[in-house]
């Protein structure tokens, strides 16, 4: 897990979005609720913006 500590902020957000999407597969299949799925997509947009502009 050495690489995990080497992620920058934007990359971490994209990484967490991936985890959230995987979790959502289970959550949506159980509840049909898309709230966290939409939140994951918004977090992704923010993560990409940070990834682009982060020095």
């Amino acid at each position, binding site marked *: 897990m050495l690489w995990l500590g080497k992620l920058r902020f934007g*990359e971490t957000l*994209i990484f967490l979005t991936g985890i959230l999407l*995987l979790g959502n597969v289970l959550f949506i299949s159980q509840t049909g609720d898309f709230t966290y799925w939409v939140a994951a997509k918004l977090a992704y947009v923010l993560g990409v913006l940070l990834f682009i502009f982060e020095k």
Partner: protein
Amino acid sequence: MFGITFLELVLFGQQFGLALAGAASFWGLVFILKGTHHQHGDTCVTFDWLSRRLIYLLYAGAGIAIISWFVISFMTPAHAHEGIVIVPELAERLAAIKFTSPVFMLWIFLFLPLGLFSRVTPAQFHRRLSVFYALHFAVILFLISIPAWSGEISSRQLFFIGHSAHSIFTLGTVLVLDFLFLISKASLHLKRHIYPVFPTISKVILVGLGIDFLSVALVFSEAIALTPKFFFMQTIIGILLINGSILAGPLTRRLITAAKGGSGKLGERWEFLGDVAGTISITSWFTITFIDYFAGLSLGYGGLLLIYVSVLLTAIAIHLLWERLHRDHVSEQLFAWHRSGGYTG
């Protein structure tokens, strides 16, 4: 088989070919401009050389797209005669083929032969390479943007455009990235020039996925159905994001540092991680583009995941075996010599 029709398979072939050709022309143009921007020798010549290499990818993609287009053109009337009930989505796809056919023919007969000039008058051709790539990119962007035609510019049509055109910046660009990675493997000089471009390429890939997310938002209630295919696609996108953040972040930085440091080699552990992450990336992008093309897939979530994991593990095994068998001994000796202080170039 598994609810996959031959027409859908050929339509995917066309999408794949256009994505590859589009990405090759896009990055060809970027490299030409980057080379021109750097007036001094080394960088200018290297990017000029790289942009010329991308012509091969452009023609490979164009070849796949054109063969698929010809097959589709011959198949369409046969479908009509057989009286097969065409689902609306398929009807929209067929309308798109009619709509884009004149541009496709223009591309085949007018723009693609321009490449012949590279053989007849190479100096003239390479002077106008940026125009060549720009023309191709514009035409391919139009062709790939109309995978289905609803008859009007509605939010549904905008969804089709975003959902298809992003393939140039995602699948196509991942293929270009792999191509660049492979051709630079044996050359420290190329690594030093190509690796620093990887973060920019990663940004384009991530923005490409963002374009797809936004296009889905346009038709959210229409586009989302809780099918096994939807859950499978979300799983693959999740894997892509986790993998992409590692690949575009720490791994790329490690590659750049290694190239700058002189050896161009990663440690054994990082090299293994890089090989696996690269294979996951290309397999996953290919999978989501492929699966997207089949409306009536009969496989469940478990079946799709099992096939994906099997393909992925096979691809990783082949990749690692290839790496072992095609180890570049000459470069390795050169790098070893460099580390010992004998080679400084």
